[in-house]
């Protein structure tokens, strides 16, 4: 079993829709979670970082962590065509390494 499993997608939504991206994890140690966005032919860009259970908001983005079910989610409100990208969830460890999900490709259609 992979340490971080991500819903594979792809997802295609109309502009303005609410998007939900989801991951589960298996190792409860060092529960630092990140969401990255990766545009084609670019490196991943850190969107959000969270440690605590609950919600963390940043503009149109909300990261949610449920440690009891080992579930992490990223919600995008009022999605825009510019949000079309691959989204990666990740979990940090105590040894500098992060373990990434395989990514979900999102397309937001105008």
């Amino acid at each position, binding site marked *: 079993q992979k340490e971080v499993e991500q819903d594979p997608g792809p997802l295609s939504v109309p502009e303005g829709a609410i998007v939900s991206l989801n991951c589960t994890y298996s190792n409860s140690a*060092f529960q*630092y979670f*990140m969401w*990255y966005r990766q545009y084609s*032919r*670019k*490196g*991943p*860009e*850190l969107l959000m*970082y969270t440690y605590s259970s609950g919600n963390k908001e940043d503009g149109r983005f909300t990261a949610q962590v449920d440690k009891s079910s080992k579930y992490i989610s990223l919600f995008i409100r009022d999605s825009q065509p510019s949000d079309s990208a691959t989204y*990666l969830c*990740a979990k*940090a*460890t*105590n*040894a*500098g*390494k*992060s*373990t*990434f*999900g*395989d*990514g979900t490709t999102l397309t937001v259609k105008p």
Partner: protein
Amino acid sequence: EAGVTQSPTHLIKTRGQQVTLRCSPISGHTSVYWYQQALGLGLQFLLWYDEGEERNRGNFPPRFSGRQFPNYSSELNVNALELEDSALYLCASSLVHAAYQTYGYTFGSGTRLTVV
């Protein structure tokens, strides 16, 4: 502020050759990380350098190696290239938390290596 810069952006090598990839971290970041992103395999952790020392390495053969210089820039070397080494090689930097956990990376745009 300049981001993480990597060079070259693209590279084509023949099987059996050697390659060196370069990375400059964000100013003030002492930790540099290398990841491989091969098609269909996701991001795989290669190496972590901090303060000039190798702190951790992923599950890759010894022909993958690197180093970090006193100015915190880094090189990734791959010897005896194989076809399956074709991938996007990503460098990232971060501020390192005292417990060696990170608050997330800043990635460069990567070096796309094609081995033929």
